[in-house]
């Protein structure tokens, strides 16, 4: 297991390096002149020249890249052109909000998607199966931003049950407050989190339910299921203890891949609900053409995605020893 983990970790390095190269090339070669972006049209040619020298833009690309990698290795992501803070500060200030949103949405997706998929598979071909798959098809086809707007219109604008935009205290802080005897903070955090997290979670739930259903159906037809019934086990025990355990394996590995879509969805969801996370930061950075900041945000997203896939792969190998010997 340790050998597998080490190999898996090593494989991540060239991929992350490739991502760094690609992002650097895209943003620095085709992305335009940062000095011009920073000074605008008012800059004199001398000022532009000085700034280009300062930003190393007058150097060959290889020198620029070497300087960039050298700083990156020290955890220096550069300085934002417009936010008057370092990229690292800007990103780390927003990371928590995005992670909180994505993780809660994933939990919601699993809590809805897995039981729905089981139900559909067990009652295959019957009304509940058709209903569940209809829900899944609609959930997949519904753009996350439209879902967000509909939920906002219903629960925030019309019924006025939940706040439409913004974020309460971070969930972890709120939970600590709860133990200090102050439940109001947690309630406020949850109220703010509810609509964005449900918006993001429902689409993922639809996909998970389809995966679970299809994996369950595949597993249900295997020989060991018949053996289990022949042993005299009841349907509930066979379904939950035998079939589900085997069917969930492929689902677990897919959830890692789906996390990428979830992060993309988070950008849109943050835009609708004014959730102060990395998504909002990236859109603002793109609109201002703040190249260092865009670079930092994109790399952070890619790193999160890679880490989640790493965790999922390791968990998968821990559950299923066959994987390690592939």
């Amino acid at each position: 297991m340790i050998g597998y983990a080490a190999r898996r970790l090593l494989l991540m390095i060239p991929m992350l390096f490739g991502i760094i190269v690609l992002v650097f090339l895209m943003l620095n070669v085709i992305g335009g002149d940062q000095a011009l972006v920073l000074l605008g049209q008012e800059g004199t040619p001398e000022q532009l020249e000085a700034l280009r020298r300062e930003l190393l833009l007058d150097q060959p690309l290889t020198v620029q890249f070497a300087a960039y990698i050298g700083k990156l290795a020290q955890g220096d992501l550069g300085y934002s052109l417009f936010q008057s803070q370092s990229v690292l500060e800007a990103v780390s200030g927003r990371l928590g909000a995005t992670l909180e949103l994505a993780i809660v949405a994933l939990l919601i997706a699993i809590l809805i998607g897995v039981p729905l998929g089981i139900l559909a598979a067990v009652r295959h071909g019957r009304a509940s199966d058709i209903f569940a798959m209809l829900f899944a098809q609609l959930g997949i086809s519904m753009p996350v931003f439209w879902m967000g707007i509909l939920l906002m219109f219903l629960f925030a604008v019309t019924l006025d049950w939940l706040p439409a935009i913004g974020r309460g205290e971070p969930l972890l802080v709120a939970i600590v407050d709860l133990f200090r005897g102050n439940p109001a903070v947690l309630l406020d955090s949850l109220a703010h989190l509810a609509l964005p997290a449900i918006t993001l979670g429902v689409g993922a739930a639809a996909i998970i339910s389809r995966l679970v259903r299809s994996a369950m159906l595949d597993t249900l037809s295997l020989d060991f299921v018949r053996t289990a019934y022949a042993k005299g086990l009841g349907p509930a025990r066979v379904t939950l203890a035998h079939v589900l355990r085997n069917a969930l394996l492929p689902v677990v590995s897919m959830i890692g891949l789906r996390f990428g879509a979830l992060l993309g969805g988070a950008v849109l969801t943050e835009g609708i609900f004014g959730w102060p996370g990395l998504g909002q930061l990236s859109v603002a950075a793109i609109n201002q053409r703040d190249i260092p900041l865009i670079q930092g945000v994109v790399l952070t997203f890619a790193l999160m995605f890679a880490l989640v896939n790493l965790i999922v792969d390791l968990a998968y190998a821990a559950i299923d020893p066959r994987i390690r010997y592939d």
Partner: protein
Amino acid sequence: MKRLLRNPSLLIGGTIVVIIVLLAIAAPWVTTYQLEDMDMRNRFSLPSAEHWLGTDNFGRDLWTRLLYGARISIGVAVVSVGLAAIIGTLVGLAAGYFGGLFDLIVMRIVDVFLGFPPLIMALTVVAALGPGVTNLMIALTAVFWTEYARVVRAITLSQREIDYVAAAQAVGASWARILVVHILPNCLGPITVLATLGIGTAIVAESGLSFLGIGVEPPTPTWGWTLSYGMRFLRADPWMSTIAGLCIMLTVLGFNLFGDGLRDLLDPRRITSGRRGRRGAIAE
């Protein structure tokens, strides 16, 4: 025909797709308004005989704007998915057939592209190139080509080992002929399914980027932009956003159902077993 009737996804999805595509093509003939025609007395109106889908904040006819928007949304999706399919197929065929170092390098590049969450990849490309229809298509192509490369490479790898390829080589067929005449036809089914499902995803991605204000720029009436612009008037007039979102959803639903149906049709194992089987390389 019987097979078609037993495949409701294909039938319903196909019908939705055909109707929407025909309406988009026939836009100038199915509406009497111009895109920018304003009717200030009828701002924010609900559907009526005069304005079938109501009007926006300038009293512009939403039916007209959504029809023309369909041209952009579907057009962008079809072109970018088509480009991605062509690039991915060529790369996949070459990598699978020639193998070796070329294959290794290509697959590592594919891994790098797959290392980005899809929407983040598109955002990065748009950030580099700037907004606009062409750049958006390039961005979406950059997101989608890897799927085709991987699937086509896998098929090519398995086909290469089958005797008929050795036979073709023995009678002196060139590698180009073997790839195009013998191996490519085996890839067309999965490519078609992937592309159909991909168009739905591309429509959502395009409208998502336009929604964020970094996709197609106004005044082009894309669905995503209409939806996002309508959000400003959500309290007073939720209709504009609702109908634009409904258009996107219906179109995507059509392409998804059609793609699912095609997959069932092209994968006979699943028809005979009467259930959804292993999804393999295609799939979610």
